[in-house]
């Protein structure tokens, strides 16, 4: 039962283009710099908003250490030029961190304790690898067999989902090809223009003869991941990446990526005060646990829970951003929930677009909002993903 006293509205949602990690176009761009960029870009879209009215900046990050360590949200806010009265908090629930940031920001507003909150996410998998720079597992994990799965890599869990849900290699590869096809088409049609804030990348190269630093800049506009040249044949040839006897390959898994996004949420009062146009209304959110060994199935429980809270049926949903951690788990979820494949990731998913872990939730929120608006669609959409160690999250939005 929702106890909110007011609604929360999205008035700006933007993201960087997503780069490939660890050798892609954003490999040398710090995640906190990407965050600064999206904070500035989001606020530039609502120039009438008074920065001092921002109650908090909530930023998701899956491995908040090193370049994205300390408290990246607060540092990003300060470097973005926000008044020092604006606080910041970095939060982590792995792959749903960005969506949880939106949820936390919205809930502050819904509770009536804030009128303006910025949510976002930033992750550089080029700079901070999966599992972080230092792995230090708890020995108790290995004291009992049933806890071993805590140590499973995500690829192993995808293999387990593929086996348990009988998702074939052929289906995974075909799904991946379609993800690329949609992403390539969306990019070519300019469908991402509304959500992407082009990023200027500075490269500093030492000239070893003149002893000067050569500075060059390049503006990146589009996501780096989608491949127009991939084919079923190429995908079929790939070797399995995690299990010698399995079906999950680098080609039917999400790409490792760099990227960031920011979403500005406000109350109805703030809409009026600053004369803002709402893009979407935040409806609700749910997160649920599942066995860690099959973490990819998480959305199967999170989506129905979120829909129930929203008081709507699946039939009311017009767009589903289902994070494609792996084709195996995406297909298992789609089949078990009987989702309409046409509504799932109409612009492609993480297999093509990339998955900068903690930023993804905020990035795909921007895709949902602008994607539906770009097609002139109004109504309900959902952002959902599976989460490491066995969870699923889903957020429901009403695009206005």
């Amino acid at each position, binding site marked *: 039962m929702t106890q909110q006293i007011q609604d929360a509205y999205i008035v700006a949602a933007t993201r960087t283009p997503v780069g490939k990690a660890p050798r892609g176009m954003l490999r040398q761009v710090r995640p906190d710099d990407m965050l600064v960029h999206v904070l500035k870009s989001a606020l530039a879209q609502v120039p009438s908003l008074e920065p001092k009215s921002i109650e908090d900046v909530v930023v998701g990050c899956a491995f908040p250490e090193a370049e994205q360590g300390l408290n990246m949200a607060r540092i990003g806010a300060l470097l973005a030029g926000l008044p020092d009265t604006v606080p910041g908090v970095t939060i982590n629930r792995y792959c749903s961190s960005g969506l949880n940031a939106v949820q936390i920001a919205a809930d502050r507003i819904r509770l009536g304790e804030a009128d303006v909150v910025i949510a976002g996410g930033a992750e550089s998998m080029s700079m901070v690898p999966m599992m972080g720079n230092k*792995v*230090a*597992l*708890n020995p108790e994990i*290995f004291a009992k067999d049933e806890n071993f799965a805590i140590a499973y890599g995500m690829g192993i869990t995808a293999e387990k989902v593929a086996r348990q849900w009988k998702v074939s290699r052929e289906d995974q590869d075909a799904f991946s090809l379609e993800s690329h096809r949609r992403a390539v088409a969306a990019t070519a049609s300019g469908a991402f223009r509304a959500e992407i804030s082009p990023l200027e990348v500075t490269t500093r190269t030492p000239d070893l003869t003149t002893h000067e630093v050569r500075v060059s800049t390049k503006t990146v506009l589009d996501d780096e991941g989608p491949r127009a040249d991939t084919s079923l044949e190429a995908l079929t040839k790939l070797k399995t990446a*995690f*299990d*010698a006897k*399995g079906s999950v390959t680098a080609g039917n898994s999400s790409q490792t990526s760099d990227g960031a996004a920011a979403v500005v949420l406000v109350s109805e009062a703030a809409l009026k005060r600053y004369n803002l146009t709402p893009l979407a209304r935040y409806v609700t959110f749910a997160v649920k646990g599942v066995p860690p060994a099959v973490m990819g199935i998480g959305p199967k429980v999170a989506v129905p829970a979120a829909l129930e809270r929203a008081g709507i049926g699946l039939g009311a949903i017009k767009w589903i951003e289902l994070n494609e951690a792996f084709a195996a788990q995406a297909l298992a979820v789609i089949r078990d929930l009987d989702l309409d494949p046409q509504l799932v990731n109409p612009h492609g998913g993480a297999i093509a677009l990339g998955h900068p872990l903690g930023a993804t939730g905020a990035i795909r929120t921007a895709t949902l909002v602008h994607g539906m608006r770009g097609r002139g669609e109004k109504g309900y959409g959902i952002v959902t993903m599976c989460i490491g160690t066995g969870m699923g999250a889903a957020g429901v939005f009403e695009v206005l």
Partner: protein
Amino acid sequence: MSDTKFRVRKVAVLGARVMGAQIAAHLVNARVPTILFDLPAKEGDRSGIARKGIEGLKKLTPSPLASRETAGFIQAANYEEHLGLLAECDLVIEAIAERLDWKMELYRKVAPHLSARAIFATNTSGLSIAALAEACPKELRSRFCGVHFFNPPRYMHLAEIIPCEAVSPAVLDDLERFLVTTLGKGVIRAKDTPNFVANRIGVFSMLATIANAEKYGIRFDVVDELTGPRLGRAKSATFRTADVVGLDTFAHVVKTMRDGLAHDPWHALFQSPPWLAKLIEAGALGAKTRSGIYLKKGRDLQVLDPASGGYVAAGAKADEGVSEILALKDPAQKLRRLRESDHAQAQFLWACFRDTFHYIAYHLKDIAHSARDVDLAMRWGFGWKQGPFELWQAAGWAQVAGWIEEDIGAGRALAQVPLPAWAREPARTGVHFPQGSYDAAGETLVSRSTLDVYRRQVWPASLIGEGRAQLGETVYENPGVRAFTTGDEVLVVSFKTKAHSISPEVLEGLNHAIGLAEERFRALVIWQSEAPFSVGANLESLRPALATGDWKTIDGVIALFQSTSQRLRYSEIPTVAATEGYVFGGGCEFAMHCDRVVAALESYVGLVEAGVGLLPAGGGCKEFALRAALESKGDLFASLKDYYMMIATARVAGSGLEARELGFLRASDVVAFNAYELLYLARQQALALAESGYRPPLPGRRIPVAGRTGAASIKGQLVNMLEGHFISEYDFEIGARIAEVVTGGDVEAGTEVDEQWLLELERRHFLALLKNAKTQERIAHTLATGKPLRN
């Protein structure tokens, strides 16, 4: 030493094809700055052709690069933009295609840019050095010669130096010093005759083999069965070697012989057989085109049937009776039985030997300065375990000469010219003697080179007949080791076991030697008179105890192993290990515990125990845990995990340089390019340590360990490998136990332990693994087959 020291500060290699690029690779292996030139590319990067040659090095096997980073140090250049760089080079090696006109044009182009002191050498394998010298400006000729490397140049020991008439003797000496010490090559000074020494005889031997195979109707796969390791030659034997070399290249070399050796009595032999011409015409050029004399069809290997021109299933075996003859130890008996046998395969083999002996005796006068050069050239350039003159001499010179004469008389030999008179002298017993080897041109015995660089070779390659005595004066000997000195206050220990495996006798002997060295010497060196350094613990010797479950005995051996390692580390005198070839398991652990390692470039170093289901328990795990702790700058686990992986995956470093990169060797350890210099270098290092006021490390070092959390983090990886079917359940157990040892057991991260604590863990987990039936299966399987078992 020479008055003005010749320094090779930089080398240019002209020509970035496979040979040029590999020579450049070996130069940078030896830390010699090298520029690799080729033609300017028509578009894009002007040095693109040279750069492509450098890139190609990374894909070759066996690797021409001795360590990962090396290729980056070769500078790519082209003849259009970079000729000015030649001025910095003290040595320029030309290695372009074997075309006299191309070479001449290149010489004209580069000559004006060469430094006034640079040596200019051509890596031709067949062209006349005199003709090439003509193409050089006059003032350059005193610094011009041929230098012929063998493919692959990193691994083949031979380099022939071929002088031109005008070359200055000092230039040849300087080049020889550089080739021998810096690049580690075995140098033969050859005469300027077509194909020089090794290729002249090697290619003849192949042609004679082909001709005799045809004569006696021996299948090609059977020829390879007979003429490979059974004769002490390379596994690729005859026809597979031709495939690897490339049939077009082989035909080209044959053509060189046909064109250049019109008066050779064997001239009729110097032509490609019709089946070879047909293969080349069909584009079947050997390994590089995946079909040649052999053809791989799926999993099946097929071999050419020259009669039909088609392929038949390969794998025909040699006759058992002939195999038995080949296994005979006594060469006199072996040759006699081959000659007397009626079996075609035996007749064929005798004919091959006879014709080769006939050929080398006939040509010795013209092509080589002595029989020693011939034998060493064949050993170093073609990988023959024994030179052809050596075999003849060992089999009884006069007897064999008589047989050859008889065969010539009967028209059975490939040429009808008689053996030279010197070879037929009735009193002749051979060509190698303590005073020197026979020089047929001078009709005299010549002794070894007195060039100063050879003073560094305390134990050079020896030949049958030289009658070399044991090195030094024996100080102590038991069934496992011999300890000796050459009078320089260093005690040298050599193992006497097969492959220098470590048996209980070796452990006892080594301990005794350390005691003697502490009492009476200034330093101790572990050195073997031939590779390998050691294949590790002798598992065979543990078998009786293993069979009866006599764990007490086994425990005692492990304890002795560990205390021996610790004595090498903590003895009162410096200890130095001189390694070459396999440095495995216990051998690696001993080397790691010495104060210094002098490793030949071709040292293959690894803690390989996991391969037989065990873990290093002679201090290897302890040493890596200790090194990780010493190297750790705040993150102990980060320094430890690579060491862990090397033990768990039984990783073997592919060179002394790589062993240093991986951490088996330390930064202070020395990599020697010429293995014949090992003992010299090891003694120098040992004495330098002794002279520097040597004290062993203080005992009782505290070692912080990665603890339970470290072990858990490793197990996290293992679980994923297990779930991903990359390792077996038992692999997981072995991996987990190795993790427990190197992380210091069930203690918190950062806890300080001592060496004995870690050794105790090694011992406990080693025993637990050894008691497991699966480890016992692995050991039995490896001892029986030489291959690992995954169970």
